[in-house]
């Protein structure tokens, strides 16, 4: 029996680029998460340095802005997930229409699940504005 020889390109973070051609939102979510991980760790250490150096505590404020921005897609995706589960997959889901249309759900309250991620993310973005105006400037 002939042996199969396969070639595998999976495993590298650069493969995230493939998302750009069909799901940009997913690309932003994934890329921001990866950057956020690094920035989170750096922020913590800069915060510790802030106890000794004044420049570090100023730098923390700028890092908080960066963290805040990087958190926006994560918050939105997290809330989408909750809305999806709450609405039984009707909101933000991709269920087969023939199934979804026959599903027993209270369709009068679905708009809450539809709007909740946008409203909450909006409040979070408002918070960023407040932070920049009230703390940074």
């Amino acid at each position, binding site marked *: 029996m002939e042996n199969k020889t396969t070639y595998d390109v999976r495993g590298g973070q650069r493969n995230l680029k493939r998302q750009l051609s069909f799901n940009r939102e997913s690309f932003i979510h994934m890329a921001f998460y990866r950057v956020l991980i690094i920035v989170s760790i750096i922020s913590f250490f800069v915060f510790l340095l802030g106890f000794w150096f004044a420049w570090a505590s100023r730098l923390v404020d700028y890092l908080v802005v960066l963290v805040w921005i990087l958190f926006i897609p994560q918050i939105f995706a997290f809330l989408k997930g909750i809305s*999806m589960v709450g609405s039984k997959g009707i909101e933000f889901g991709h269920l087969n229409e023939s199934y979804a249309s026959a599903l027993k759900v209270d369709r009068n309250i679905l708009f809450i699940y539809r709007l909740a991620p946008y409203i909450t993310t909006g409040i979070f973005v408002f918070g960023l504005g407040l932070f920049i105006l009230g703390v940074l400037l």
Partner: protein
Amino acid sequence: MKESWVSLPTIYVPMVGVPILLFAYTVSIVAGFQSIGRILLALSMVGLFVFGVSGFRDVYINHWNGKRTRLRPAVTINKGSAADVTLPRAEAKIVNFHVNRFNPETQRLEESVYGVETDSFSNVLDGLLKIKTESDPTLSMRYSCRMGICGSCGMVINGKPSLACETNVWKNLREDKITVAPMLGHPLLRDLVTDFDDFFERHLFVNPYLFRNDLVEKYHPTVQYNQTKEELDKFLPFSDCIMCGLCLDACPVVNTNQEFIGPQALSQAYRYYADSRDEAGKTRLDHVDLLKGVWDCEFAASCSDVCPKGVDPAFAIQLLKTEIIKNDFIKRKESKS
């Protein structure tokens, strides 16, 4: 140790907690409560550190385990373009198919361009079969039913994982051309053909069959296992999976981390968990309560975006996570009482 006890407090709780703390920090500073603000900032920094370290383990360390190879740049071999083919019918259109073929000898994706006569009903598979019969018999692809049921002809069309037999050529033209490539989320064999051994191993990992304790009844059935509509509704959409592998190809986590079981297998784990006839119960949840199981899903939802059958694997994975969390709470309550 169960992964939910690690991932929940270190990733999911900080994901909600840190933004709330940052918000509270801002409000307290704006309101003039500096000392409270400093405490809130310190708490949010600790949360961020825990989140960062846990995410680093999840995304970077775990992903380093994967084999990493790079496809070298493509070379173009022109097999004849639209200009070389005469247009026989008024309603027909010659479309350039840019086929990125994987060459196992050079380990490169090599682009071949073919001019193909198409009409408004032609799908990409029709075009590829025309190329194979009329222009280039060496072109390899996998296909079978030609009607979106077998799930064999999965490939990347214009950058999106799709079934070739369900993708209309005219409706998906980009600058008068169609670009076809193999699914890079699976090991490559030749041209557009990918290897599915790894895919089926992942599928088998979740024990995709009904468990019954009544063995005598199982092998010598005497009764029917009736289900109500509500019971059926819980798993019905997830049972439509045709195992085409598009979700696995689209998943950014699978593409960056081979350890992750993937959306197809996990959606089937939920499909059997939610089936009232199945008696495996909570053991199915414990089986996928792993970092390489449900907790590696970052909810990009690309799997659901490309699913041709509306299975919505991303939804199934979120339901699994919810069930695992619920189950943990119930267990803790029971152990306390």
